[in-house]
């Protein structure tokens, strides 16, 4: 059976998204041919702004590379512009004569920047801001010239101006009106925005109408209607876009401002569909991706001949993608006679919020400085929710509703499941949570891959991360008392741990038997937890069970995505020596280690080591005096130090020496989650001690101790615990704190969430106020260390049977 032929004209965001949706529904229905007049695969146009500002590279914004077209059997004609559609012969013809026949044609030609036809507009150095070519030209010019003028103070103009500023140019934004982004912002928000941008070094010329572009061959400046002039070596026009409709118009398709389409995205000729910025639907044209992606979904459905789904138009919201500036706007925010506005303005904090209401429903919103609740307001707006009940709290945001809030800290937790998080791709919180839970996602990239959330403009990244932290973290930590440990039991972490202590249970089997485990061997979440609780409760009696440890702890190395491992030897306090470095270099050469990298924890990581080589690598490292760095363990990781008083002109104490003493005391200890320590030599805190599980900041009169910091998924500054006068006391507190954490925190609960659960006051009671308790904890810690502090590398490398298990059991050569 021969397939129908589908031709797409316009290899941009809307057209290719339609193909993606189509391939999901009916992968084999069409022979697909694509024409695109740009010489690339499909890229994320939105992210040209960060490319211009240097925050991203072109490679990072590619959506579908050439391989994707190949894999899906799509013929791509790159760099070929279609100049004619022959509707009688049903084919399209490109500039160079390439012809393709179609049964269905999809037009997605996008739009072009509007270039004001003032004298001089053809001159060299006058550009639009639309494609990779424009960005390349701007980057090249920014290296050679200094002064830039951007005409247009809208979204695109400001992103262009910010980018050029980041490239070191002297940039003036020229705007016709007296407020920036007048289509999205009210006056107050616009003037706050302008002030912030001015502080960053942008210049503005407001209420200025360009009359001519000056220069001979290349641009030299602008002249305005009032006679004033501005020198410029580069002029970027960002005053609006015009849908690309010539092709369609010449083919006799009905066009007004855009190519006119119906609710199934068909043009006047039912064989011809159109999506994207080039279309006009119910009188409206769009310039943001969210509505275009909605169109793509509906269009694909009809191309697949499923025939369900109608496109009924979209409400849009905007965010400005200038790093460090939070701005959100949606709907109608100007307000009319029958509307009322509620406003909050905290000028010193740089926060402004305005919600426009009509008949107790949200009509529009403008947020500046704090945009966390943007998604929520947008949701209320689109749903037409009656807000009379929550009117008083509306401005404070969703976290303040009911008792679910965490003081505004976590907006993600209180979002309803159907709230849209990623506006670009129409992904709701429910979609994200479902993907995280069902697919076991852990990273932002994985969530992006599975849901497309935050994969387009990236401005919802923060919210997606919060949802991730919330969903994954909910499993790991802060589990409510009543939550069972996992599907194998109804008992909670705390129940299990108490039983282990009270009944003096010392093996995993005994725990499972006593507590009637439902599964014979437990699962991959309860077994590691049980193993930990047993070791923590009975360090001298319980036997470690390697098969109940995650592979990293079993192999004493970190597994990589290709199945190889990374090896990190300990480098006490971050201090090394020529001999150690030489040994690492020699070993890296001997085992052909593909990557040596300095870690964020002040030591060296050797990546790409084959499992069977691990014991040999370890034994070589051992020979040079190095031991395992436990970079893989729920255990002490690193003790980061700064140089301190031995060298630094500001150092107050020997922070390096103390760090090494602490590391020598604490290495090898198993903890509920990883544990990081740092020691800084003075309050300048170069070792970043206040985002560590335990941080020591040296001062003239002694040592300040800080606990519960975290620099990971959710950054948390440590809380000050107390100040001590001597190194001995610092060591004692350190050991006692580790022991308290080890005995009390739940498995996979880091010190930060644990501290928040039990409270700083409770920890102080145990460690600071109760000296006897502290000393007892410290003793128990030292006692447990006698057993735990053995280098696992030396143990395994020295044990024939153990190290033999790292190699294949058999090599079959003739198969």
């Amino acid at each position, binding site marked *: 059976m021969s397939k129908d032929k589908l031709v797409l004209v316009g290899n941009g965001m809307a057209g290719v998204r339609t193909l993606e949706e189509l391939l999901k529904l009916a992968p084999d229905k069409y022979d697909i041919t694509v024409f695109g007049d740009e010489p690339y695969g499909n890229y994320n146009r939105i992210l040209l702004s960060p490319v211009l500002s240097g925050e991203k590279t072109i490679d990072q914004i590619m959506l579908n590379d050439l391989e994707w077209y190949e894999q899906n059997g799509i013929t791509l004609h790159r760099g070929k512009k279609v100049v004619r559609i022959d509707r009688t012969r049903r084919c399209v013809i490109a500039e160079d004569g390439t012809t393709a026949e179609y049964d269905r044609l999809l037009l997605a030609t996008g739009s072009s920047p509007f270039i004001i036809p003032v004298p001089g507009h053809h001159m060299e150095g006058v550009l639009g801001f639309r494609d990779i070519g424009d960005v390349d030209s701007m980057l090249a010019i920014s290296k050679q010239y200094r002064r830039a003028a951007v005409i247009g103070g809208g979204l695109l103009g400001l992103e262009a101006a910010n980018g050029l500023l980041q490239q070191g140019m002297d940039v003036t934004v020229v705007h016709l009106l007296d407020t920036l982004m007048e289509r999205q912002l009210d006056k107050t928000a616009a003037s706050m925005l302008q002030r912030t941008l001015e502080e960053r070094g942008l210049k503005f010329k407001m209420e200025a109408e360009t009359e001519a572009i000056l220069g001979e061959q290349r641009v030299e400046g602008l002249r305005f209607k009032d006679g004033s002039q501005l020198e410029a070596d580069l002029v970027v026009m960002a005053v609006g876009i015009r849908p690309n409709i010539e092709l369609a118009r010449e083919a006799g398709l009905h066009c007004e401002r855009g190519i006119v389409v119906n609710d199934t995205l068909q043009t006047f000729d039912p064989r011809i569909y159109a999506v994207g910025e080039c279309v006009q639907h119910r009188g409206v044209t769009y310039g943001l991706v969210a509505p275009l992606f909605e169109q793509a979904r509906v269009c694909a459905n009809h191309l697949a001949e499923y025939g369900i789904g109608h496109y009924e138009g979209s409400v849009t919201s905007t965010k400005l993608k200038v790093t460090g500036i939070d701005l959100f706007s949606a709907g109608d925010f100007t307000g009319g006679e029958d509307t009322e506005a509620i406003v909050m303005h905290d000028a010193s904090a740089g926060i402004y919020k305005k919600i426009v209401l009509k008949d107790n429903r949200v009509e529009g919103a403008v947020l500046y400085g704090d945009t966390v609740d943007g998604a929520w307001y947008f949701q209320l707006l689109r749903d037409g929710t009656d807000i009379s009940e929550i009117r008083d709290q509306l401005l404070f945001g969703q976290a303040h509703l009911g008792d679910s809030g965490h003081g505004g800290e976590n907006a993600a937790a209180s979002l309803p499941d159907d709230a849209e998080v990623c506006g670009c791709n129409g992904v709701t919180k429910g979609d994200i949570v479902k993907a995280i839970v*069902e*697919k*076991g*996602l*852990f990273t932002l990239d*994985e969530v992006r891959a599975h849901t497309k959330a935050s994969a387009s403009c990236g401005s919802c990244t923060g919210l997606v991360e919060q949802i991730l932290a919330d969903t994954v973290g909910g499993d790991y930590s802060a589990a409510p008392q009543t939550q069972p440990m996992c599907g194998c039991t109804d008992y909670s972490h705390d129940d299990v741990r108490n039983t282990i202590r009270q009944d003096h249970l010392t093996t995993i089997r005994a725990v499972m038997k006593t507590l009637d485990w439902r*599964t*014979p*061997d*437990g*699962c*991959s979440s309860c*077994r*590691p937890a049980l193993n930990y609780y047993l070791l923590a409760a009975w360090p001298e009696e319980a036997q470690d069970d*390697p*098969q*109940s440890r*995650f*592979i990293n702890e*079993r*192999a004493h190395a970190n*597994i990589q*995505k290709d*199945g190889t491992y990374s090896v990190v030897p300990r480098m006490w306090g971050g201090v090394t020596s020529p001999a150690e470095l030489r040994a690492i270099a020699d070993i890296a050469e001997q085992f052909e280690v593909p990557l040596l990298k300095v870690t964020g924890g002040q030591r060296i990581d050797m990546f790409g080591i084959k*499992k069977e080589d691990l014991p040999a690598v370890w034994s070589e490292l051992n020979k040079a005096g190095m031991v395992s760095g436990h970079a893989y363990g729920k255990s002490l990781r690193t003790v980061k130090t700064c140089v301190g008083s031995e060298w630094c002109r500001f150092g107050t104490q020997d922070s390096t020496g103390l760090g090494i003493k602490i590391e020598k005391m604490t290495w090898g200890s198993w903890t509920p989650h990883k544990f990081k320590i740092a020691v800084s030599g003075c309050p300048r805190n170069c070792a970043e001690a206040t985002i560590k599980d335990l941080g020591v900041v040296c001062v003239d009169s002694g040592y300040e101790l800080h606990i519960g910091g975290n620099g990971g998924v959710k950054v948390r500054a440590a809380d000050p615990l107390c100040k001590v006068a001597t190194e001995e006391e610092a060591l004692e507190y350190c050991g006692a704190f580790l022991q308290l954490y080890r005995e009390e925190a739940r498995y996979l609960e880091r010190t930060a969430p644990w501290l928040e659960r039990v409270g700083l006051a409770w920890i102080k009671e145990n460690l600071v106020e109760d000296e006897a308790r502290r000393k007892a904890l410290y003793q128990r810690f030292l006692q447990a260390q006698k057993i735990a502090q053995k280098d696992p590398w030396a143990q395994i490398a020295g044990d024939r049977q153990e190290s033999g*298990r790292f190699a*294949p*059991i*058999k*090599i*079959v*050569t*003739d*198969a």
Partner: protein
Amino acid sequence: MSEWVEVGSLEQIPRLGSRIVQTGKGDIALFRTSRDEIFAVRDACPHKQGPLSQGIVHGNVVTCPLHSWEIDLSSGEALPPDEGCTNTFATRVEKGVVLINLASL
């Protein structure tokens, strides 16, 4: 050609653990359950080719070490909601010696 190949003794595989059989056509993961059953599957997770041999074994299931998909060792199928399948190989144990059938390799 005889497809049954001896690979080693049962004792060489830790209980609830695994070992690898290397072949010219990729690795095979050999698992031993708590009831001493032996399973052999291709050492590549249907998700992103993670080495299943390095996962945690429970019941007749292994949890992939990379992103925690759960794979049924007897069928090679991923447990719902994940979807996908890895090849399985027949095994038998004779007098403490493990044999594996490589016919489908």
